[in-house]
């Protein structure tokens, strides 16, 4: 019975099916709002679902010389990200059922989609993909440092715990982490890290279609491409949710979660539409310079109790 419930949690709610649907709808909100900002009409709400279904019906082309890793890499990203979605969802539903250290696991698993992209791109043997993967790699190296620093801020603020449920409980009892100076700083930093993790402008250099024609994704088609798209959709659901849990965890009733989620989505879309793409070296400098500095300051402030 326990196994069945776990399977349900992983596959249906709040795991794969639920997070994918929410992610695809969030992706539609992104597309629609972007379109309205551009004075365009934008797609209907089911557009992202139709896109995925269409991709499933397309031929999968495997480039000559590509190994099995080319086809397996998308699953690696999807499986680990689904695990994150399930873990975060069940932590919100029942904060006490987690285990010590699940925060670390989530942090690890959140990197895996980027790693999957890198592996897939590397096995496709395309020169443009190799440019894209080297950019993706640099970007991961760039944003992980400030992101982990800001998570450390949260850990300190929540009374040194590495359990997501404990962080939520601490915020329910003592107020949201964002309400302090260090929390606000860490939140600001992690918004930029989220933008980079999602691969949105200004940090979409690894896919830059005008430069390297989709870069890491260039050789993908059909089912594997659809899986990457779904992974990205789940990431669009998971990342804001993770930030809500870390920084705005005081009130996690459904209505408040939706409001906070929409707020974060709006921030993402606004950043995306009001800036040009930065070069990868500029992105790296941005994350290792001002962002890491701010995140370190947040850690120090948190240690001082601010």
């Amino acid at each position, binding site marked *: 019975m326990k196994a069945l419930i776990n399977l349900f949690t992983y596959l249906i709610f709040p795991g794969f099916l639920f997070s994918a649907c929410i992610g695809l709808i969030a992706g539609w909100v992104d597309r629609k709002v*972007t379109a309205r*900002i*551009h*004075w*365009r009409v934008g797609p209907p709400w089911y557009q992202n679902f139709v896109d995925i279904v269409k991709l499933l019906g397309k031929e999968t082309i495997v480039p000559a010389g590509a190994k099995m890793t080319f086809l397996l890499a998308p699953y690696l990203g999807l499986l680990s990200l689904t695990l994150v979605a399930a873990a975060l969802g069940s932590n919100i539903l029942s904060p006490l059922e987690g285990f010590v250290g699940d925060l670390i696991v989530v942090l690890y698993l959140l990197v895996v989609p980027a790693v999957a992209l890198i592996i897939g791109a590397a096995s496709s043997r395309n*020169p*443009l993909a*190799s*440019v894209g993967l*080297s*950019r993706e790699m640099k970007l991961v190296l760039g944003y992980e440092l400030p992101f982990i620093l800001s998570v450390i801020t949260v850990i300190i603020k929540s009374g040194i715990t590495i359990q997501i449920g404990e962080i939520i409980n601490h915020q329910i009892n003592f107020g949201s982490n964002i309400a302090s100076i260090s929390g606000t700083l860490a939140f600001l930093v992690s918004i930029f890290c989220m933008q980079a993790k999602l691969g949105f*402008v*200004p940090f*979409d*250099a690894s896919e*830059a*279609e*005008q*430069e*390297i*024609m989709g870069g890491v994704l260039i050789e993908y088609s059909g089912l594997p491409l659809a899986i990457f798209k779904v992974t990205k959709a789940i990431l669009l659901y998971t990342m804001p949710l993770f930030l809500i849990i870390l920084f705005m965890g005081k009130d996690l009733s459904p209505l408040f979660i939706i409001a906070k989620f929409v707020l974060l989505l709006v921030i993402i879309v606004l950043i995306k*539409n*009001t*800036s*040009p*793409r*930065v*070069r*990868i*070296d*500029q992105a790296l400098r941005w994350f290792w310079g001002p962002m890491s500095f701010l995140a370190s300051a947040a850690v120090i402030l948190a240690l001082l109790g601010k």
Partner: protein
Amino acid sequence: MSHKVIVPIGPYHPLQEEPEFFRLHVDGEKVTDIDIIIGYMHRGIEELSEHKHFHQVPYLVERICGICSSSHPYAYVLAIEDILGGEANVVPERALYIRTIVDELQRLHSHLLWLGLAGHFIGYNTVWMWAWRYREPLLDLFEMITGNRNHYGISKIGGVIHDIKDEDIPAIKKAMDDLVPAANMFKGAVMDDPVIHARLKGVGILTKQQAIDWCTVGPTARASGVDIDVRRDDPYGVFDKVKWNVIVEKEGDVFAKAVVRILELYESVGIIRQCLDKMPKGPIDADIKDIPPGEGIGHVEAPRGECFHYVRSDGTNRPVRHKIRAPSYVNIASNKVAAVGQTISDTTITLAAVDPCYCCTERVAVLDKKTDKQVLNGWDLIKLSQEKTEKIKKRMGINV
């Protein structure tokens, strides 16, 4: 990644909407050399034009480029009018004003188009969509004045085809008034945005000496501090009767090219306003029938630079020689110095910064980089095309 690879931009690439091929020799992210291969759209316009009636050619050369579609016919009729004794002596004054207005409207729409594309190339799609939104009223103006949104068909030997009606003038003036706030907005968006500064400043620098050495023209040259503009140096239309400035920037980078084009928007708006105020009444066409023997040149300042036409007439009703040089022909070549040494990200915007127009530029031999030997020239392409036609004929069982 430190090994050398070749990153192809083209022949079909989302960067630019026309077939072109830039072969970037890349070391890591750094571009060490660049091969520029164009000529995928050779249409034999010069040859075609030598088989057309003098009065048909403007419609043909208009189709060289959908963006400079006033400049090419204008340069051609200038060349013919050069044979006849000069534009100012042949063409009625009102027609000169109308030509100038259409020429400047074209510059406005072309610069806005480039601005949008430049935004797109650096991933700033909001600028892209907004620039094109403000370009749309200009296309409506074209439709009102000439009947067409893109191929205006207004230049004619000895005058223009369509008059600007008095009742249309307030609408044009209003469109100009509406455009100024939009131009202000773009000026602010480009000149005050720190991220755009970071992306465009110091990128793709073409020094003044390089700009002169590579014979660049138009905004590309003016952004490098070369003070040239056909409208002032060899005035045509009524450019010598209105007040305007040639915009020159010194830096030579992509940012300077953007600034030149944005500031030129204001000059164009000023020229159009003055023309509308000063435009006299009168005929718009000198009704010229025969072209005497002789040779003439005509050049205009197209939005991309000097557009040059040479025509020789032997007294029949067809040009015996028609030579065209479009501005992109020289500007694209300057990428060889401007784009090398950049990263791939900067190269793409540098390549686009000269506002290249590939269909204008189709007279290029294909060279092999290693041996410097010609792989294909114009004649080879024609031969290829003939062989293909033969094959198709054979397959379809046609014997001619």
